[in-house]
C-alpha cells in the first residue's frame, strides 16, 4: 500500500512535471544594436499574440517564460524597428534591433502620452536618429534639425551667434505667436522663446533665441509632430507642433568612454553681398574648436551617463566670439521590481559677443551693404582703407555681450501597477537666465558719427536680464487589454505647466568711458516685465486595434489656462482618427517585394494656442514721467479671451515599395477658429489694440516624404531622402477688424488682412500710365514670406560600413522677400541698377511708392551640410574600440533667385514670441560657412 502510494506520488509528480513541461519553456537572450553591437536595455519582449512579456535589463538581457507552443517573440523599443523572432529549439537567442526612421512598428512617444507603435496611430511623427544628428556638428538645436525633418523648414535669421530662427511646418496657424513648436526634453517642457525677449536689447535685427542654448549633449533621438490631431493631447500651445528630445541612457556593464573633438574654421558667407569690399572690410575667418567627453555604465539595477562639451569660435568677423560649456548627466534606476526612476540633468552656459545689426544706424555691416558709404567699388584704395580702419576702430569699441546659464532637470517615474496598467509620472524644470549688455562709450558714439569729437556725457549702458522658469508635470495611466481580436490601450492623463518670465532692463545714461557698471552714470532707469501663465489639462485617450491592422484613435482633453478671460472655463478638445494596414490583410495579394506596406490613415483633431498672458485683464499703467508718477490707459481687457483652436482634418497613405522605397503622403486642412487677432480699436476711442478671438485662418496643403534605398549591397549602401511640402495659408475672416501690422516697416510691412496670407507683404505698387506718369496703388499685396513650397533632401552613401559620405539641404519656392538693403542704398543714391525703372526714378517717387520694386521672389536651394566620416574600427590592439575621423562643411552652397539671402531677416520676428514671418533681408550676415574636421574615439 505504501509502495502504491509512493508510485502514485511519483506518477502525480511526473504528471505535474509533464503538465508543466507542456505549458511553458523559458527563453533567455540578449538584445543588441544591429549597427554598433551595443546591448540594449529596456526593450520590450513579448510573446506574440499574448500579453506575456518582459523587458531587457540594463545589460540588454532578458528571460521570459513562454508557453510551449509559443512560436514567436516580439521585440519593441522606442526609436527602433519592431522585430519578430521565430522560436526554434534554442532557448538562448541573440537579437539585433535596427534603428529605424520609417517603419510601421517604430515606437514613438510624442502625441500619445506614452510609447506606441507607429502602426497604431493615424498621424505622422518624424524622427531623427542619433546617427543622423551626429552628421551635423551644429551648435544650436534649430541648426541641428535643419534639413533633417521632412515636413519642417528652419531658417536662421542671422549668422550672428545665438540668433532666432523661423521653424515652420504646416504654415502659420496664428497671427499672435510665431510658428515655433513646443520643445520638450525627456518629457519636460523647455524654454522655446525663439525671439528677443520683451525687454531684450535692440541692437538691430539680431534676435536672441532660447533655442540656441538648449543642451545638445547625448541626444538619443528627436521626434517631431507638426500639429493637428497628434497635438490634441498637449493642449495649451501645441498647435504649432511638438518637438521632443530624448536623451541617451547608460548601459549595464563595463563603463564606456568616448572623446570627440572638432576643429576648423568659420568663414563669412559672401554669396549675398552687394560689394566684395564688405567682406574685405569686416570678415575675418575664425577658429572653431569643440571637445566632447562622455562616459556611461551601470549595473542591472542602476545606470548612468555623463557627457560634457566645450565649444569656442572666433566668429567670422572681428567682433563675434562664442563660448559654450555644457554637460548632461543621466541616471536610471530600477528602484523596485515595479518602480523605475530615470532622471536627466543638464547645464548649459553660452557666452557670446555681437555686432550691431540691421535696424540701427550703428550697424557696420548694414551701413556698408546699405550704401551709407556710397558705392564701395568707387572708393579709392586710400578711401577704402580709411573706411576700413574706421570700421575696425568701431568694431574694437563695440561691446555687446550676452551670457546664458541654463539648468534642465527631468524626472520620470514609471510604476507597473499590474501587467496591464502602467503609471508614468514626469516632472521637471527648465531654468534659463540670460543677460544681454550693450556698452556704448562716448568713444564709440563719436566713431559712429552720432556726436561730435570731445563728447563725454553721452555714453550709455543697457542691460537686459531675463529669468525664465518652466515647471512641467505629466501623470499618465495606461491600461492595455486584449479581448479576442481586439486590443485596447486606454490612457488617462493630466498635465500641468507653469511658466514664469521675469525680465528687467536697466538703462544708464551719461556713463563715463571705462565703466562697465551702470553705477558710473548720470542717470539710470529701470523697467521690468513679468509674465506668468499656468496651463492644465486632463485627457482620456483610447487606441483600439482590431486584428492588428484596423486602429481607431480617440482622444478628449479639457484645457484650462490662467490667460483665459473670466467668462471662459475649460475648453474641450477632441480628436478622432483611424488607420488601416491594408497590406496586412489576408486578401492582399500584391507580393511584398512590390508593396510591403500599404497603410491608410485619417484623423481629425483640435489643437490650441493660448492667448497672451494677462491680455484678458483691463489694466492701467503707471509710468515714470519726469521723475513723477503718471497714469495712463493700458490694456482694454477682454473677459471672453480664450485659446485659438486649430482644427485639422488629415488623410494619409504610407507605402513601402520594392523593399527600397517608402513614401508618405499626407493631406491636411487646418482651420484656426477663434483666431487671436490684435487689430486696432477705432482710432476715435483712443484705446490700445486688444487681443480678441475674432479671426479665422486656413492652412491647407500636403506633405510628401520619401526614402529611397538606391543601392544595397554588402559593400555599398546609397540612400536618398527627399520631401516636398505645399502649404496655402489664408486669413478667411478678420471678423470685421481692419488689417493690422505684424512686422516690417510702415512703407512695406507684414500685415494681417482678410483674404490674404498671414503676414503678407503690403506696400505700394507704382504703375506707369501711357502718358508716362505713375499711378500709385497703395497697400497692395506684394507677396508672402511663407513660401508655399518647401522641402528637404539628403543623400547618404556608405562603403564597407566604414566610409560614410553625406549631403543634405533644403529648398523653397513660391515665397517672396524684401531687399531692404537696397531701400537703404536708394537713400544713398547707390541703389541696384535696373531694379527701379528709370521713369519712376525720374518721377522722383518716394520710397513708399516704390515699395513694390524691392520685393523679390525668394526661391532657394541650399546645401546645408556636406561631410564624410571614416570608421577605422577597433585600433591599437582594441584599446580603442573605435576611431572615427570626419570632415564636414556647413552651408557650402546657396542657389537663390533673390539678390538677398532668403533666410536672414532684420525686422520680421516680433519680440517675446510674437508673429514671425521674416522676409526683410537686410543688415545682417548670413549663416557662416564652417569647415570642420572631427575625431571620435570610443574606449
Amino acid at each position, binding site marked *: 500500500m505504501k509502495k502504491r502510494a509512493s508510485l502514485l506520488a511519483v506518477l502525480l509528480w511526473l504528471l505535474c512535471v509533464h503538465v508543466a513541461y507542456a505549458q511553458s519553456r523559458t527563453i533567455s537572450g540578449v538584445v543588441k544594436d544591429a549597427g554598433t553591437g551595443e546591448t540594449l536595455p529596456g526593450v520590450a519582449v513579448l510573446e506574440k499574440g499574448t500579453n506575456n512579456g518582459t523587458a531587457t535589463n540594463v545589460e540588454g538581457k532578458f528571460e521570459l517564460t513562454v508557453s510551449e507552443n509559443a512560436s514567436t517573440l516580439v521585440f519593441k523599443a522606442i526609436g527602433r524597428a519592431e522585430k519578430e523572432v521565430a522560436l526554434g529549439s534554442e532557448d538562448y537567442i541573440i537579437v539585433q534591433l535596427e534603428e529605424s526612421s520609417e517603419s510601421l512598428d517604430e515606437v514613438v512617444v510624442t502625441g500619445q502620452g506614452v510609447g506606441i507603435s507607429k502602426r497604431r496611430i493615424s498621424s505622422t511623427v518624424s524622427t531623427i536618429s542619433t546617427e543622423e544628428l551626429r552628421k551635423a556638428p551644429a551648435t544650436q538645436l534649430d541648426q541641428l534639425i535643419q534639413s533633417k525633418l521632412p515636413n519642417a523648414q528652419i531658417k536662421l535669421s542671422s549668422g550672428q551667434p545665438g540668433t532666432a530662427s523661423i521653424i515652420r511646418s504646416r504654415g502659420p496657424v496664428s497671427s499672435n505667436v510665431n510658428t515655433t513648436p513646443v520643445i520638450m526634453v525627456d518629457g519636460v517642457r523647455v524654454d522655446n522663446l525663439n525671439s528677443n525677449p520683451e525687454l531684450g536689447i535692440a541692437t538691430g535685427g539680431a534676435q536672441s533665441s532660447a533655442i540656441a542654448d538648449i543642451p545638445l549633449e547625448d541626444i538619443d533621438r528627436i521626434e517631431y509632430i507638426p500639429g493637428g490631431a497628434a497635438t490634441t493631447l498637449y493642449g495649451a500651445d501645441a498647435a504649432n507642433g511638438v518637438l521632443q528630445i530624448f536623451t541617451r541612457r547608460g548601459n549595464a556593464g563595463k563603463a564606456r568612454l568616448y572623446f570627440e573633438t572638432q576643429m576648423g574654421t568659420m568663414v563669412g558667407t559672401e554669396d549675398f553681398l552687394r560689394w566684395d569690399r564688405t567682406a574685405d572690410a569686416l570678415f575675418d575667418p575664425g577658429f572653431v574648436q569643440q571637445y566632447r567627453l562622455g562616459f556611461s555604465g551601470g549595473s542591472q539595477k542602476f545606470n548612468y551617463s555623463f557627457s560634457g562639451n566645450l565649444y569656442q569660435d572666433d566668429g567670422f568677423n572681428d567682433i563675434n566670439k562664442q563660448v559654450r560649456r555644457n554637460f548632461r548627466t543621466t541616471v536610471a534606476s530600477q528602484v523596485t521590481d515595479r518602480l523605475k526612476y530615470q532622471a536627466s540633468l543638464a547645464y548649459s552656459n553660452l557666452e557670446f559677443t555681437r555686432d550691431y545689426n540691421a535696424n540701427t*544706424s550703428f550697424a557696420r555691416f548694414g*551701413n556698408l551693404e546699405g550704401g*551709407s558709404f556710397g558705392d564701395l567699388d568707387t572708393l579709392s584704395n586710400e578711401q577704402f582703407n580709411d573706411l576700413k580702419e574706421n570700421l575696425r576702430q568701431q568694431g574694437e569699441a563695440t561691446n555687446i555681450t550676452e551670457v546664458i546659464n541654463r539648468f534642465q532637470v527631468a524626472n520620470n517615474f514609471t510604476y507597473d501597477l499590474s501587467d496591464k496598467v502602467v503609471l508614468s509620472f514626469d516632472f521637471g524644470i527648465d531654468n534659463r537666465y540670460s543677460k544681454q549688455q550693450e556698452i556704448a562709450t562716448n568713444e564709440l558714439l563719436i566713431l*559712429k*558719427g*552720432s556726436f*561730435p569729437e570731445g563728447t563725454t556725457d553721452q555714453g550709455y549702458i543697457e542691460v537686459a536680464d531675463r529669468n525664465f522658469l518652466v*515647471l512641467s508635470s505629466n501623470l499618465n495611466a495606461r491600461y492595455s487589454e486584449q479581448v479576442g481580436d481586439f486590443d485596447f490601450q486606454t490612457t488617462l492623463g493630466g498635465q*500641468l*505647466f*507653469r511658466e514664469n518670465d521675469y525680465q528687467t532692463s536697466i*538703462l544708464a*545714461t*551719461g556713463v563715463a568711458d571705462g565703466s562697465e557698471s551702470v553705477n558710473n552714470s*548720470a*542717470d539710470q*532707469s529701470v*523697467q521690468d516685465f*513679468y509674465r506668468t*501663465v*499656468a496651463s*492644465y489639462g486632463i485627457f482620456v485617450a483610447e487606441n483600439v486595434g482590431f486584428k492588428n491592422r484596423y486602429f481607431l484613435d480617440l482622444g478628449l482633453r479639457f484645457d484650462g489656462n*490662467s490667460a483665459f478671460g473670466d467668462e471662459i472655463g475649460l475648453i474641450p478638445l477632441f480628436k478622432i482618427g483611424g488607420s488601416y494596414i491594408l497590406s496586412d490583410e489576408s486578401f492582399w495579394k500584391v507580393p511584398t517585394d512590390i508593396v510591403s506596406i500599404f497603410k491608410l490613415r485619417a484623423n481629425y483633431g483640435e489643437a490650441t494656442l493660448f492667448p497672451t*498672458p*494677462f491680455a484678458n*485683464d483691463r*489694466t*492701467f*499703467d503707471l*509710468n*515714470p*514721467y*519726469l521723475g*513723477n*508718477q*503718471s*497714469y*495712463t*490707459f*493700458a*490694456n482694454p481687457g477682454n473677459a471672453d479671451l480664450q485659446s485659438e483652436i486649430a482644427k485639422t482634418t488629415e488623410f494619409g497613405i504610407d507605402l513601402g515599395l520594392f523593399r527600397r522605397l517608402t513614401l508618405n503622403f499626407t493631406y491636411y486642412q487646418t482651420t484656426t477658429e477663434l483666431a487671436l487677432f490684435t487689430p*486696432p480699436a*477705432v*482710432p*476715435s*476711442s*483712443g*484705446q490700445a489694440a486688444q487681443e480678441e478671438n475674432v479671426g479665422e485662418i486656413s492652412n491647407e496643403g500636403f506633405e510628401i516624404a520619401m526614402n529611397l534605398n538606391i543601392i544595397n549591397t554588402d559593400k555599398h549602401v546609397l540612400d536618398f531622402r527627399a520631401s516636398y511640402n505645399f502649404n496655402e495659408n489664408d486669413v478667411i475672416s478678420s471678423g470685421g*477688424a*481692419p488689417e493690422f501690422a505684424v512686422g516690417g*516697416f*510702415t*512703407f512695406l510691412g507684414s500685415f494681417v488682412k482678410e483674404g490674404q496670407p498671414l503676414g503678407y507683404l503690403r506696400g505700394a505698387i507704382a504703375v506707369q500710365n501711357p502718358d508716362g506718369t505713375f499711378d500709385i496703388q*497703395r*497697400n497692395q499685396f506684394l507677396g508672402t514670406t511663407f513660401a508655399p513650397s518647401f522641402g528637404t533632401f539628403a543623400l547618404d552613401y556608405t562603403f564597407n560600413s566604414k566610409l560614410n559620405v553625406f549631403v543634405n539641404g533644403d529648398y523653397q519656392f513660391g515665397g517672396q522677400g524684401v531687399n531692404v538693403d537696397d531701400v537703404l542704398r536708394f*537713400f544713398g*543714391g547707390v541703389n541696384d541698377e535696373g531694379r527701379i525703372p528709370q521713369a519712376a526714378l525720374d518721377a522722383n517717387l*518716394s*520710397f*513708399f511708392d516704390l515699395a513694390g520694386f524691392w520685393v523679390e521672389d525668394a526661391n532657394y536651394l541650399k546645401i546645408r551640410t556636406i561631410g564624410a566620416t571614416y570608421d577605422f574600427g577597433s585600433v591599437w590592439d582594441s584599446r580603442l574600440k573605435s576611431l572615427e575621423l570626419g570632415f564636414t562643411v556647413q552651408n557650402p552652397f546657396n542657389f537663390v533667385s533673390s539678390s538677398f539671402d532668403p533666410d536672414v531677416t532684420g525686422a520680421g520676428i516680433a519680440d517675446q514670441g510674437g508673429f514671425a514671418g521674416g522676409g526683410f533681408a537686410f543688415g545682417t550676415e548670413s549663416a557662416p560657412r564652417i569647415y570642420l574636421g572631427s575625431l571620435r574615439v570610443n574606449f
Partner: protein
Amino acid sequence: MKLYRILLVSIIVALTYTSCETVDPFDVVNPNLSEEALVGQPNSAAIWLNGLKRQTAITVNNTFIIAEIASDNYVNTQTFYNQFVDDLTIDYQDDDIDDAQFHIARLRESALYGLEQIGPNDPNYTDDIQADYFFYLGYSHLLAGEYFRALATVPGGPLQPRSAHYELAVQYFTDSYDLNMNTAAILGRARANYHLGNATEAIADAQQAIALDPDFILYADFDPQNSTGNNNGLNYTVSDLQDALYDRGSFDDLQPLPRLDFLDPKFSVISANEDAPIPILKIEEAHLIIAEANVSTGNVPLAQQTLQDLLGVVNGRLVRSINDAAEDRSQRAPGSRPDTAVVVVDGRPGLVLNRDDGNVSIPAVSGTSVDTARILTTLGVDDMLELVYLMRQEIFIAEGRRFTDMGLTLVISQNEQQLNPNVASDQIIADIPPFLAGISDQLDAFTYDQTAYTVSIAVDVNEVIVANKTSDYVCPFE
C-alpha cells in the same frame, strides 16, 4: 485594517491638499494695475494729470512731425518719417494720419476719464487739477480742429466739423479758466476763437493772456530716459521731433527750407536723458492774433506796434548754442543744399548758417528774421499780412502750426472709416486748397547756385496765402 487604510488615505489626501499651498502652480497674479487700483485712490487725480501731460507729449510726436513735413517748413530727404505728405499726398491709408487722430482721441479720452472717474473719486481732487483736465480736453479739441476737417467727438461717433471742435475747445478752456484763471486756458481760447474767426473774442482773450503772463509758454515735456517701445508705440516719450530735426546721426535729418535754415534745429540735445521741450502754447501767439486782427481791420500802424511788442518777446527768448557739425546739410548729397553763411536767399543774407565752423546759435523757443526796420517799412495791408504770416512761420517753426496756416487738413483714416459707420466716403478724400494743389511739389523747392552762393525759393507760400486770404482755407479773420 480597514480603518487603518481609511486613515492612511485621509492623511495622504489632507497632506496633499495642504502641501499644495507650498507649490501652488495655479497662483497667477497680474502685476499690472487694475481699475480698482486707481479709481478712488488718494492722489490718483494728480497722477492722472501727469499722465495727461505725458500723453500730450506723445500726441505732439504724432501730429507735429507730419504737419511740419507737409508744410513748406521741412522736406524729408532721407528719414523714415512720413513720405507721403511732403507733396501733399494726404492719403487715408497713411498710418501716420491714423496715429494723429488716435492720439488726439487718446488725449481727449484720458482727460474725460480724469474728469468723470478719477477726479471725483479722489479725496484730494482740487479745482486746479480739474482746471487742467479741462484744459487738456480743450487742447485735444483744438488739435482736432487744427488738423482735421471733421472728427468724431466720441468713440466711433458721428464726425463733427472742425468748427464744432473749436467750439468745444472754447467751452472747455472756459471751464478751465473759470476754475482757475490760468493763462494756458485763456491763450488756448484765444487760439480757438482765432480759428473760429471770432476776432473780438480772440483779441480779448489774447490781451487777457498777455496781461496774465507776458512771457507765458506751455511746453510739451519729453522723457527720453523713461521712454519704451518704438516711435509708433504708446509709450514713446522721446521727442520724436528732436530726433527728426537733430538726432539722426549718420542719416540726414529733416531739411528746412533754406530761408528758415537759421531756425533749425529748434530742438536739440540737452543731455542724454533730457530732450528739448516743445512749446504748445506761447504768448507770441497772442501778439500775432492781435496783429492779424489789426491787419484785418486795415490798421497797419497798430499791427506794426503789436509786432514790435512781439519782437520784444521773441528777443527775450532762449537761444541755444549747439554743435551741429554732425548734422551738416544733406550728407547724402553734399553741396545740394546751402550750408554756409555767405549764402543769400532771395536777396536776404544771414538766413543760412555755417555748421562746420564751431557752435551755432539757434532760437529754442522763437526766432525771426524780421526786425523793427522791416516792420516799420511794411506799409500795405497785404504786405503786412504777409509779414505776419512770415513771422508766424518763423516763430512757430517745428511747432506743427504752419500746416493749419496753409489751409491744410488731414483726412479720416482707413481704420476709422472701417470701424466707424458714421464716416462718409468723402471724408477719406483729401481737401487740398486749390491754390496749393497746383504747386504741391514746389513747396520745398529752390535752386541753389553753388558758385554764386545764391538761393532762389521756388514759391513764397506766404505770398500765396495772402493772395488767397479770402478763401475759407486760410486767414480766419479775412
